[in-house]
C-alpha cells in the first residue's frame, strides 16, 4: 500500500512537469493546428539562460527564472517570425509548418552543441531537494512538491489569462477559427506572437525544473516527446486535456516501472498512444477531427 502511494506521488510529480510542456504544445496547436516540435528547444534555451544567469548573478533563482522566462518566450516569438510566419503567409498546409518545426528543433539543439558543448551541467542547488515525508506514508522531495505547486500556479495563471483578459478572449476566439477572428478585427500576427511567447515561457518553467532534476544538456528537449504523447492522449488543442493526459502518462510510467517491469515503461507509454489514436483519434478532450498530425 505504501509502495502504491509512493509510486502515485512519483507519477504526479513526473506528470506535472510533462503538463507544463504539453500545455505549450496544445496552446500552439489550438491556434495554428500544427505540432510545434521546436518546443523542446525553447525548454533548453530556458534551462541554459537560467544556468548562466545563476553563475553570473550569484544563485539568485528569481532573477535567473525571470530572465529564462523572457528569453525563452522571446526566442519562441523569433522562431515563429523567422521560420513559421513566411510559411503560413504563403500556404494553408500545416504539414510545412510541422516540417519547419522539426528543422528548427535540430537547429536549436545543434546551436547549443557547437557553442556550449554536449557536457552535462548541473544547476547549483537553488531549489531545496530535501526529503519530505507525506503523512508518514510516503517520501518525496521538497522539489517535487514545489514543482507540482509551480505547475499548478502557472496552469491556473494561464487559465485566468485566457478567460479574463481581452487577448485571452481573442486567443479563445482564434482557437475556434483563426480566419474569422482575423476578420473580426483581431491582429492575428500579434495574437500568434503572444501565443508563442506564452508557450515559450511555460517551456522555460518546465526547462528549469527538468534541468534541476535531470541535469542540463542540449538533447534535454527530447523529453518533450513524452509530453507530446501526453498532449495527444489528452487531445491536442485542449488545455485541460494536456494536463489530464500528462498526469495519466506520468502515473502510467511510474506504475509500470514499479509494478510490472522497468523495461516496459516506454512500451506502455507508446502503446497508450496507439490505443488512443485507434479508439479516440481526437484524444480524451480533443476538438478538431481533421488535420491531426
Amino acid at each position: 500500500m505504501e509502495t502504491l502511494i509512493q509510486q502515485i506521488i512519483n507519477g504526479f510529480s513526473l506528470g506535472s512537469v510533462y503538463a507544463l510542456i504539453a500545455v505549450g504544445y496544445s496552446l500552439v496547436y489550438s491556434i495554428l493546428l500544427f505540432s510545434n516540435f521546436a518546443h523542446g528547444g525553447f525548454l533548453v534555451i530556458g534551462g541554459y539562460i537560467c544556468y548562466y544567469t545563476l553563475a553570473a548573478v550569484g544563485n539568485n533563482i528569481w532573477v535567473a527564472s525571470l530572465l529564462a522566462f523572457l528569453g525563452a518566450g522571446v526566442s519562441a516569438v523569433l522562431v515563429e517570425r523567422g521560420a513559421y510566419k513566411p510559411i503560413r503567409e504563403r500556404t494553408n498546409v500545416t504539414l510545412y509548418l510541422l516540417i519547419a518545426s522539426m528543422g528548427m528543433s535540430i537547429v536549436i539543439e545543434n546551436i547549443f552543441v557547437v557553442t556550449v558543448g554536449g557536457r552535462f551541467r548541473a544547476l547549483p542547488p537553488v531549489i531545496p531537494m530535501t526529503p519530505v515525508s507525506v503523512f508518514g506514508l510516503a517520501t518525496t522531495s521538497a522539489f517535487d512538491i514545489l514543482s507540482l505547486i509551480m505547475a499548478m500556479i502557472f496552469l491556473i495563471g494561464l487559465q485566468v489569462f485566457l478567460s479574463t483578459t481581452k487577448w485571452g478572449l481573442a486567443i479563445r476566439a482564434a482557437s475556434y477559427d483563426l480566419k474569422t477572428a482575423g476578420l473580426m478585427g483581431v491582429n492575428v500576427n500579434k495574437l500568434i506572437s503572444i501565443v508563442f511567447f506564452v508557450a515559450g515561457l511555460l517551456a522555460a518553467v518546465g526547462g528549469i525544473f527538468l534541468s534541476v532534476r535531470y541535469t542540463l544538456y542540449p538533447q534535454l528537449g527530447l523529453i518533450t516527446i513524452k509530453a507530446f504523447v501526453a498532449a495527444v492522449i489528452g487531445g491536442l488543442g485542449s488545455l485541460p486535456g494536456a494536463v489530464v493526459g500528462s498526469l495519466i502518462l506520468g502515473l502510467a510510467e511510474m506504475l509500470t516501472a514499479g509494478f510490472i517491469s522497468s523495461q516496459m515503461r516506454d512500451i506502455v507509454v507508446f502503446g497508450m498512444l496507439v490505443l488512443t489514436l485507434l479508439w479516440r483519434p481526437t484524444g480524451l478532450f480533443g476538438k478538431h477531427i481533421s488535420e491531426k498530425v
Partner: protein
Amino acid sequence: MRKFLVLALLGVFAVMGLAAAAAAEDVIKIGHLAALTGDWAAYGQTEVNSAKLAVEEINAKGGVLGKKLQLIPYDFRTRPEDAVNAFRRMAENDKVVAVIGANGSGINIATAPLADKYKVPQIGTVSTNLLVTVDEKGVLHPYMFRICFTDPYQGQLIAAFSAHELKKLTAAVLWDVGSDYAQGLREFFMKYYDQYGGKVVADLGFRAGTDVDFRAQLTTIRDSKAEVLVLPNMGKEMALIMKQARELGMKDIIFVGGDGYGEFMWEIAGDAMEGSYWINHVAPEDPAMADFFKDYQKAYNDECKEFTNGVLAYDSIYWLADAIARAGKVDSTAIRDALENTVNVKLHHATMSIDPATHNPMNKTGVVLIAKDGRGQFFTKIQPE
C-alpha cells in the same frame, strides 16, 4: 704501405661489422599495438607514453639480461584489420619478441590467431572480454595474455567487497539493459554474492540515454530493504540514480559501482555521492602509483588522464621485462612460458599471478575508491577470498 692501408681498412670494416652485430643483439624489440589515431587516440597515446617511460626506466638500470629494451609502436587506427597487418609486420619484419596492447578486446580477439601462428606472446592491456585468451570453445590461445582482470572477475570483486568488507548481505542491482559490460558485471556479481551468503533482493533495469527518472525502480528497491545498491554501469545515469535515491529518503543505502566513477558525477549528484564505493583496476589515488603519475607529468608535461591505460601499459612492460629475465634468453617461446608461469610477481599496481589454464590474472587486487569530501579517494585494495 698499400698493404697496410688495405689491412687497416679491413680491420675497420671488421670492427664496424662486429659493432653492428653487437648492436642488433643488444636490443630486445617489443611491439606495441596502440591506437594513435582515431576514436581511441587519447588512450593509445597515453599507452605509448607510459610504455616508453617504463622502457627508459628499465634501460637506465641496465636493461634486461644486459640488453636494452626497444619499443616499436604501431598504430592500428581503432580498426581490427589494421591491427592484424601491424601484427604481421611486427612479427615478420621487425622480429619483435613480444607485443603489448591493444587496449580493446575486439582488437585482441582479431590478433589472437596471429600471436599463436607466429609464436609471439601478446599482452592485452585493457582487454576485459573472456574471449581474448580463450576461444569460443574454451580452448586456450597459448600466446595470448592480459594484465587487466576480466569483467566477471570485477563482478566477483564487487560481491566480495559488499559481503566481506562492508558485511552487508542484502543488495539490489540497478543496471543498464543496453550495455554488455553492465550485464556481465551484474551476472557475476549475483553469482558470487550468492556464494558469499548474500541475497539479491531487487534486480532492476533501465536504459541509458533515454531514461532520466529512476524513482519507480528506486521505490521498489527501497521497499526491498536492500542495504547495498550495486551500480555496474558507466555514465551520468548513476549520478542521477544516487541523487534521486537520497531524495526518496534512502539515506542509509550504500552505493557500490565498478569503473564508472567520474569526477563529473559530483556536479550532478552533489552530496549524494558521499560515501559511495567504486571498484576499479587502478586508480590515480593509489599511493603505490604516485611516482608513476609524477614522472609522467614531468616527462610529458601532461596529466595522465587515461590512467587505467597508462598504468596497465606501464606495468605490462615491467611484467614482460620480468618474464624475459626469468626466461634467461631472448626467445619468444621461452618468454611465453615465463609469462605463463608468473607467480606473485610484484608490479607497481598489483601483484601478478597467472592462471595457466586461462591466462587470466589470478586473485588480482582491485582498487576501491571512496567518494569523500568532494573527491574520489583511495580506500583499500581487495581480493576475493
